[in-house]
């Protein structure tokens, strides 16, 4: 009886509709001069992606011929001062898509630029992912003003205040 119940539960679980998780291809270039905060931020971002019910990390070789793949390219390097000592570095996130509305290199080498700080990498990763979701939503619905208007707001400014 218990075994039958277990079997039914397993079958129900297998047949239950699975939430569609958008595949995200993550690439990175973490410069040594960024100090430990670079790898820390990347690890935090991978954790957030793994935890997310909306996304799944994927690996690819080449640009997919069909469908859209979200692409996140992260560069962390030291722009000012001694980043290892200061525990902060500059992150450049290229938020793009591969596939129909393809890439692989956009008109700029970053979409969002922000500071990552030691001890705050989890929050930075969460904010970036939420911001990327807003950008991806806009990119996916660029042909419908109504759908685009329903997209979430971008959280990150394009560059840190006073940077340019």
């Amino acid at each position, binding site marked *: 009886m218990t075994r039958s119940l277990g079997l039914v539960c397993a079958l129900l679980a297998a047949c239950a509709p699975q939430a569609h998780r958008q595949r995200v291809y993550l690439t990175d270039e973490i410069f040594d001069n960024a100090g430990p905060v670079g790898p820390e931020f990347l690890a935090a971002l991978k954790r957030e992606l793994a935890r997310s019910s909306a996304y799944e990390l994927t690996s690819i070789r080449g640009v997919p011929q069909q469908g859209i793949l979200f692409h996140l390219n992260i560069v962390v390097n030291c722009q000012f001062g001694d980043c290892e000592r200061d525990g902060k570095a500059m992150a450049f996130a290229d938020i793009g898509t591969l596939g129909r*509305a393809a890439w692989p290199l956009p008109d700029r080498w970053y979409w969002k630029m922000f500071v990552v700080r030691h001890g705050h990498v989890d929050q930075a990763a969460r904010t970036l992912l939420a911001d990327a979701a807003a950008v991806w939503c806009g990119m996916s619905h660029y042909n419908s003003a109504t759908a685009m208007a329903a997209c979430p707001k971008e959280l990150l400014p394009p560059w840190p205040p006073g940077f340019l």
Partner: protein
Amino acid sequence: MSRSILLMAALIARGTAWCQSLDGLEAEIQGKQPNEVRELIIRRLGPPARILGSGFRIEAWDVDGGVLIFHPASGPSFEKGGKLVWLMHTVNPAGLCLYGHYEMTARPEPPYSMKYYLGDLYMAWDSSYIFSFNPARTEGRKSQADNFFVLHPRGRVEVRYASDVTAETRLEDLPDGTLVATLTFVAGPSRSAKVYQILADHTGRMLRFAGEPMPFEMNKGWVNCWR
């Protein structure tokens, strides 16, 4: 005898030049990755005649009476007689290219037509905009007293496509100077507004701001150079 050898050498050399043609290359490179395209060009034409540019390794070959250029970001192009042809067949929908980063420069100033960098405009997908003014160059700043974006660095933007253009329209199909969209920028609390046109620039693979009076130039590249 030696004349015959010279003649044969000349013929062989000429024959080699004939082999170095772009015939069929454009069709062959479609759908390929940048490194695959580069390898195909080298296989066909040999090592590049020149390395151009900085930052990127931009390679050039003299072929078919023109110059073939391989740019790892912008893609391959062929220039002959002042006419530039981009070799990858791309799809750049107007609506996709409209948002993102624009670069603003002052209008070219005599005597050397210098265009001073003034700042960046970012048009977010949520229809907000933010402008960052670069005050480093006082030469450029003097002429920007009435620059709307300097006066109003944040606000919202309303996009209205031209009558025969939609968000899906391929920019590849629009000749230079075609009106793509009209943008109305409305600054935050002051509600000041300014209208600009966005024009197609097929040759430069850009979108350009237009409107009078405009003390600056502003443009943004297409998003997709390879597909």
